């Protein structure tokens, strides 16, 4: 496993420094590292990675609907070692609230708004969590990327239109 030196070093360093906050780590392959943390601890981990591993670049934030919970993945890129680090955490779907990271990495602002729009996660402390992507007349409280939102409505419409044609 000599080719995974940078990755292992990163994982061990993070574990040593923030041991109690790390739930789980995974080295998937070269340049792909996943770190699982509890919601709330992600800020400390990201801050540490930014300071010590030059991970000032956040590629995006992915939100995944797991059913009960919503999983958030912060895809960072650590320029020291050139590793893509993904910090993952979960928030309950019934009360999806999490601390923002905009003050640590300002580039994350649009990604947080996007996740807020499409999955309804509230980022506490975000300066302007307004609608970004969905149309102005989109109903409140409906989030297209949650599993309960289905595309069926449109399919009914399609049949009707075919009939007209």
């Amino acid at each position: 496993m000599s080719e995974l030196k940078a990755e292992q070093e990163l994982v061990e360093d993070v574990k040593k420094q923030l041991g109690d906050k790390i739930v789980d780590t995974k080295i998937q392959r070269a340049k792909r590292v996943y770190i699982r943390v509890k919601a709330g601890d992600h800020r400390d981990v990201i801050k540490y990675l930014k300071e010590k591993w030059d991970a000032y670049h956040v590629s995006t934030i992915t939100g995944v609907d797991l059913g009960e919970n919503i999983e958030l993945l912060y895809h960072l890129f650590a320029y020291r070692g050139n590793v893509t680090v993904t910090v993952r955490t979960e928030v309950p779907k019934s009360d999806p609230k999490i601390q923002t990271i905009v003050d640590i990495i300002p580039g994350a602002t649009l990604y947080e708004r996007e996740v807020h729009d499409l999955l309804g996660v509230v980022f506490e402390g975000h300066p302007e969590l307004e609608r970004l992507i969905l149309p102005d007349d989109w109903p409140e409280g409906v989030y297209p990327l949650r599993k309960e939102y289905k595309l069926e409505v449109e399919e009914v419409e399609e049949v009707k239109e075919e009939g007209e044609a």
Partner: protein
Amino acid sequence: MSEERMFRIPVGPQHPALKEPINFTFIVDGERVVDVKPRIGYNHRGIEKLMESKTYIQGLYLIERICGICSAAHQGCYAQNIEEAAGIEAPPRGVYLRTLIWELERIHSHLLWVGVAYHEIGFDTLFMYVWRDRERVMDILEMISGNRVNYAMNTIGGVRRDVTPEIVDNALKALDYLEERTKYYKKVTEEDDSILARTVNVGILKTEDAKRLCAVGPTARASGLKVDVRRDDPYGAYDELDFDVVVYDTCDLTARVLVRIDEVLESIKMCRQILQNLPSGPVRVKFKRKVPEGESISKVEAPRGEDLHYVKANGTEKPERYKVRAPTLANIPSVCEMLKGGYIADIPIVFAGIDPCIACTDRMLFIDVNTERKWMWTEEELRMYARKWYKKHLKEVVRERWKC
């Protein structure tokens, strides 16, 4: 108390080039832009949700249509991603051909952009010449893939078509021609007064800000940030190719034009290497429709910057979740930064210069912090305003710009 005046204009005439509607709210203090708030979504088609209802095979072609100009980058990224999640590996010849398409696409995209930039400053003849020469790349792409724009070349497990020796010969010839022409355009851009008058010291994005706001692609590289997924996180055949990451540190519009022209030259170099050293063997391996449970991240340097895809598979034929982060979104905060502190009159030029995907601002909302007056402008109105304003304030601006 506060006079509130809003007018909306029907979005009239569409600019012939690349319109992707977007909305910005500007907060201005007199003539200076204090803050910028973007609002996107006019082009939101719900691709991520739609992906969940498509099989992996169908997804190949949906993902291609996120952007018609960087279609191969998205599709290749997707194919790479699913391959990793499914645990299969494309054969070397397939990987080389995939890389070839990526680089050809970069040439076509950058040339297109350079042409559009000339068009924006009213240089129609040069626009016509660039687009005429761009047709040569389109011909190679059509020969290799069977279509001019959405190539549908990648598949999960490799590429779908092989190249014949005649195609390789033709492509090499066309590349020679393109190299000569591109060098000429670089010279014109560096020397022609009317082009430089519109680009030098306009729309500054400092290196620090580019870093802070996670700028990607040519925008970041024109601000002196040496980032390139092809070098930092090699994929495809890039770790076997010899290329330079083009960086300019003047941080203005000229740098952005020159970065793209230089990247075309680098891409031509890479295409030659690929065409001359094509490994032999099959171009694809079989993919069995289903992907085991798991996840994967794939990154590609699209013509506009870093493109990230994330897949979460659940063992069926369809993905559980597919996430795409296209480069333009990543650059929006940087664009806002370029505008902040600048003059309102600079807005259209800066937009046009960054990236054609943003040059198409539809409606902008302005709020003056002093009077709380609100109004709305289309891009066209803004440009008209820009002319008027420049007429009045040209001297101060010029003095200020040339100070440093």
